[in-house]
């Protein structure tokens, strides 16, 4: 374990998201639906030195293992992130995020006239582009502030 990771305490069970681009930790928390109001135990390191990224953010969430959907969206704003699943203080799984071809049910289309925002029995769905994402229904491309389009958890 590096000195950087020791700046915040180890967690017993949960997820450590490492190698987040510097300054994106709050957006990662937004993706996870964590706003501090629901009592999760969370540690955040922002803009700490990193060999790989220069500066990076780290998020540690006690008592929660991320779903594939959450990891998929995370990959859009933190493509270099590594996910560490911790059980009884040991890292039992460690993997890098990979960009999925599509993300479903996580982002909402910013086009108010898109059928996916109407009261229809479908999930929102976005194709992942080289840069940004594209609504499968109305084909609107979203490149900026993807985290702000995350559907309410």
């Amino acid at each position, binding site marked *: 374990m590096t000195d950087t990771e020791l700046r915040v305490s180890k967690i017993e069970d949960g997820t450590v998201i490492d190698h987040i681009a510097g300054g994106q930790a709050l957006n990662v928390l937004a993706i996870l639906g964590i706003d501090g109001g629901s009592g999760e135990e969370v540690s955040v390191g922002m803009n700490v030195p990193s060999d790989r990224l220069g500066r990076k953010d780290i998020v540690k969430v006690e008592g929660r293992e991320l779903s594939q959907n959450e990891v998929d969206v995370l990959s859009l704003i933190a493509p270099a992130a590594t996910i560490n699943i911790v059980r009884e203080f040991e890292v039992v799984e460690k993997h890098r995020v990979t960009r999925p071809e599509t993300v479903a049910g996580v982002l909402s289309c910013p086009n108010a*006239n898109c059928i996916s925002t109407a009261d*229809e029995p479908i999930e929102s769905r976005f194709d992942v582009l080289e840069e940004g994402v594209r609504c499968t229904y109305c084909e609107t491309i979203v490149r900026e502030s993807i985290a702000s389009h995350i559907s309410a958890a």
Partner: protein
Amino acid sequence: MRHDHLISAKQLSRGDIETVLDRAAEIAADPGTVAGRHADTLLGLLFFEPSTRTKMSFDAAMKRLGGDTVDMGSVDSSSVKKGESLADTVRVIEGYTDAIVLRHPSEGSAKLASEFVDVPIVNAGDGAGQHPTQTLLDMYTIRENAGLDDLTIGIMGDLKYGRTVHSLAHALTNFDVSQHFISPESLRLPRGVRYDLHEAGAQVREHTGIDDVLDSLDVLYVTRIQRERFPDENEYRQVAGEYRIDADLLGAAKDDLTVMHPLPRVDEIAPDVDETTHATYFEQAHNGIPVRMALLDEML
């Protein structure tokens, strides 16, 4: 051509387009070749927005093929008024008909409908999205008047919300066509359409005035700038005035320039253009019948 649904012009290859246009030309030359070919076919017309040309020409095309149509009627008199979802509406109608022609005010509506039914869905306009059957009749008109290769076209007006423009621009990437897009800054092509054109290898040449390009054009495709797109009446009037063409302006154009418009026009093409050899928009509207007959014949 073999597609279960026609949702977007992006589905159409050069071969698909030529197949429909060739068939349409055969039908136009001799409508009797297809009489009665679809005698047992019932086409559902679901128009959630007003339409004159598209709806009537699908109705006429199906009947000229020997089939028949059933029409949902206006939204006000349908279950939609009671809050029924589009997904439910199309699932009900697919039990009544062999194919569904859908117009809806929301982008992506035809795509959604296609996910819920097995009968073919034909997108007859989804909000500011796509209008692929208009594109086929536009392509037919262009081919008849100017040819589809070695062509320079100007597309002018509301390029942001104009669904006929979005479909046409993409279909033209299948041919050797230079496209010029002429619009106010606020009504430029949307990012998604520009992305698709770049992906298709097309060059997107954008202009804010027609004077730069008018004398190089073989075809000028004019669209309506809608009043409701502008928050301010004065701003609308100013912009609309700058994107209006008349016979005087066309004096600077090539003699054989073809002027098209998907109609309805308001005042973006002055009536004095109607009397010139450039005016092709009424012929364009008439072409909706053989082209939609050809399309239905290919799809059904």
